[in-house]
């Protein structure tokens, strides 16, 4: 599985993480292009189903990025999101998947560096884990036959 380029979805809240991503850009702080952002008003909007569907559709990793803890523009959306991420990790664990494929991140609007940093680290982490097992299965018809 060399030259594997992870496909990563980042659900970013409008007020902090998404803005931080813009910041990173305007300050020309480079980070891996693997990360694709989907904008939400608040991470409180991101539910387990969104994260699961991303994996189901083929994401190698998914993370939710919201405001710093205690700084949520909507009071506590980011803590709600954190709990949902843990909830999904529990499922992944039961299914024997690596729980590190999903994560919760926090950053303020100003933290372009932090956005780039987390994007870099998470991408590296997923690179280590290898591709979404669903994709591997799809590639090896043999395994399919086995079932």
């Amino acid at each position: 599985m060399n030259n594997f380029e992870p496909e990563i979805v980042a659900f970013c809240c409008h007020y902090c993480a998404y803005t931080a991503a813009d910041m990173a850009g305007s300050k020309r702080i480079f980070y891996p292009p693997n990360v694709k952002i989907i904008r939400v008003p608040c991470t409180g909007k991101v539910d387990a189903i969104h994260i699961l569907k991303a994996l189901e559709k083929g994401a190698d990793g998914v993370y939710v990025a919201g405001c710093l803890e205690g700084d949520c523009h909507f009071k506590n959306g980011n803590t709600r999101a954190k709990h949902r991420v843990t909830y999904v990790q529990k499922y992944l664990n039961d299914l024997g998947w690596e729980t590190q494929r999903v994560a919760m991140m926090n950053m303020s609007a100003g933290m372009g560096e932090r956005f780039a940093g987390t994007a870099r680290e998470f991408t590296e982490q997923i690179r280590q884990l290898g591709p979404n097992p669903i994709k591997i299965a799809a590639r090896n018809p043999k395994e399919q036959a086995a079932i």
Partner: protein
Amino acid sequence: MQQHKDMNDQQYNGKSVLVIGGGVGGIRATLDLAESGRNVVLIDKSYAIGGLMTQLDRTFPTNNCDLCTVSPHLSESGRQQHMDVMPMTTLENLTGGSPDFTATLVTQPRYIDINKCTACGECAKRYPDWVRFTPGLDPRAPTCMRYPQATPYAFSIDMDKVTDIKKLQNICKANAILPDDKAVTKKQSVASVVLSVGADVFDSTCLDNYGAGNYENVVTGLQYERIMSASGPFQGDLARVSDRKRPKKVAWIQCAGSRGINSKRDVPYCSSVCCMYALKEAMVTKERFAKEIETTIFYMDMRTFGKDYENYFDRAQNEYGIRMVRSRPHSLVEDAQTKNLTVTYAQEEEPQCHTESFDMVVLSTGFRIGEETKDLAGRLGIELNRHHFAQSDTFNPVQTSKAGVYVCGVFESPKDIPETMVQASAAASMAATNLPAIVTDQAEKEKFLPERNVSQEPEKIGVFVCDCGFDIGGVIDVQKIVEYAGTNPDVAVAQAVGYGCSSESMAHIEKQIKDHQLNRVVIAGCSPRTHETKFQDLLRRAGLNKYLVEMVNLRDQNTWAHMDAPKEALKKAIKLVQIGISGVRRSRPLLDNTLPMSQNALVIGGGVTGMNAALMLAKQGIQVYLVERAPALGGLARSIQKTIEGGDVGAYMDDLIKRTMAHENIQVLTRSIIVDHAGIPGLFTTGIQTGLRMTYLKIEHAVTILATGALPNRPDEYLLGLNENVMTQIDLDTLIEDDTDKIQGMNQVVMIQCAGSREPGNPNCSRICCQTAIKNALRIKKTNPDADIFILYRDIRTYGFQEDYYREARNLGIKFIRYKASQKPEVKDSAGELSVKTHDFILGQPIEIAADCIALSTGFIADDETTEDLSMMFHLPRTRDHYFLEDHVKLRPVDMSVRGFFIAGTAHSPQSIRESVNQAQAAAGRAVTLLAKKEINLGAAHARVDSTKCASCLICVRACPFDIPFINAEGYSQIDPDKCHGCGTCAADCPAKAIQLLSFEDDQIMAKLDGLFERYN
């Protein structure tokens, strides 16, 4: 309507309000005016607006960079059409009179075409010294200043420095460089002028006794801000200039260049802000760098007189352990090796001098009026006071000596950001009275085609890809993206559009939509955060619902961030575009639900503040209900005779009351109380019981101004109420007016400051007591020059120009004796003979003063009952000491957290009549900006409940951070769109999936995922 509009046009075609100075004050005034439907021209001599605040690291009392809160969202169409921001522009002259001035404006050449410049920053990167650029802010800047190109990152070419303009032109892919740019002169017809030019922070080098300028580790407060600022010289690391090492001991020296007698280098007035900013810098130093850093502040009087500032001061001392030394060091000496600084100082408690060494010394320098400003004043023909600040009316601080010309901010008198904000809104409000609002809603409707109903049409998508010059096109091949987009069957048009946000491209896209009857649009360019509204307007103009556009962030989140990897950037771009296309398929037309807004206002409180607010609103055609619980208007000011400047309060009040009663738009309801309240911002209904019979009446109003005032404090101490010769300053004030003989009979008068203030129960400073005491002392001296007057004080807080009167009092031999809170004076009454015992620090022993009269400076105490009742009725927050708590203490000082509520006067915090008038005007002005919208836009991104799916499980009711959902009479969850904040938490939590957050519905998010992963699905 039509006719009304014409009338408007005749009244003043293209007439504007001219705002001079683009600092926070100028920006606030500009926004208020534009929002209230006035055309406004904002000029600033600098090439970037933002002013002084943009150079501060963090600002008190919130200790963070709140610039994002105030930074103008100039792209919002509603405002944009009323606003013309002209950087690098100065006023040459102003002819004519109010409201028909003609201003001659000169704009210096920028050598950059603002409409083409994309602020890519290439020029500044390649030829830094040719290009002027100050983001000015800390790294939050770009997020803070969400400026579209109307006020760009503000690049400009310094032509004198440029050696080869060709080079510049070559690297500018937008070819925005204009080598032959010329200064432009423009005549502008102006109804009124707002001066917000601020002041200079003066050049401290004249303070040779502090070695300012020679000693490397002696810096001014502002320099210290820059050193701490992340965008500063040391990237936000606190370090000494001499050796880049982090200081272990930092000292602040207050009043550097202020409150001085040395006319060569000092100014006599108090700069009002230095005490607070020194405290702030010391706190931030410990907060952000190291608790261990020793911070010491040398001061004369600690002047924390603002709202809750005394608490701030206490926190600084008790929580942060900042050391306070009451002394004014006369000099500093630098150690040649260590570059450390030795401070020599004496304290009044004990005779001997101390010397102490510091790593770094900060001079708390204040404000000066610069020469440019003096010239400007000359050109405008307005008078300056003896300190060269704008002379303004006693009872109307924003009114200059010239009708139609208003002043705000530091140019009026030294003040901090909150007060500048208040005054800016006040000045804007006054300026607006000379210029009826443009009735725009009609114009708007004419501008937009009726929305096309696309519900039956199959998706017909247009994809427009910006190259944004080098910024996108230079990294990835836009054409490839266009081709890819075209492969989507339902994409009817896919084109590259250069600079999508340029006027030509916008026009082109609009035409494409119409010609091809597109019903969905994808704009692949920069961030929706900055440009979405712009393109939403474009869709409206093209007859499409504005929610049918999806923006793909190809620049900020792709080409800028992946310049190093163009190949991958292209791959990512294609995916992002696909996400956009898949997403836009699912987007539905949404209605910003709106309600007609009432045009009435409710003003609670009939004192100085309430009446001024009422009149400001009434003048602008608003129907005002002025509610006063007392039998007559007037309030506390009724019992005051004179201001410290000598203004006749009585006469002023008579006139004010007369005008209020007489105004056709004001309905005065005395003997009235508020009994119930309901509704939403813009459409409140409030129940009032009024008159002797307590008749109930219900009024409808869009806004509410709280002007309920505070109470004169009457603490139970110093024999007040037990001996007739112990009185409050208010009693004394009347006595001075009415009983000259008694005053002349007085040999010794003692005044005790902070009686009932700055102590438990009423912890904050009452702000007005020092000036009141000095005012009355001076008046006694007038009628009875031989009287000996003693003022016992803790800190004398004669901020701003009041310092003059303090000096005058000292010159007249009025004795000021300091006491400590721990060692308060004692008042004795031995057989009617009054005397005061206190400790004299200079003599170092207790003294006893016989007194014919003891005046207690009792100041204010919050009207707890009233604020409690109203805060419960209106759901408004209060401070710990029971004043109303504004939405943002610094940037929205007269706005309450509940939209439609505004606060002014002593219900906000203790303040003088003059200051109350300011807040009244400000509150009225802010109220008008809301009223001008004529309708209540409730937006579209709110949660909607499908009652057929709802299981009434209460999960949304419990999960909502704002307690909006409730189970209605039918037994289903109901979420009022007008209250919903649109976070979507309920939608995520709903176990029945009965709630969707409009414009972020689940199927839209899923569709975007599909777009990204099509390969696998």
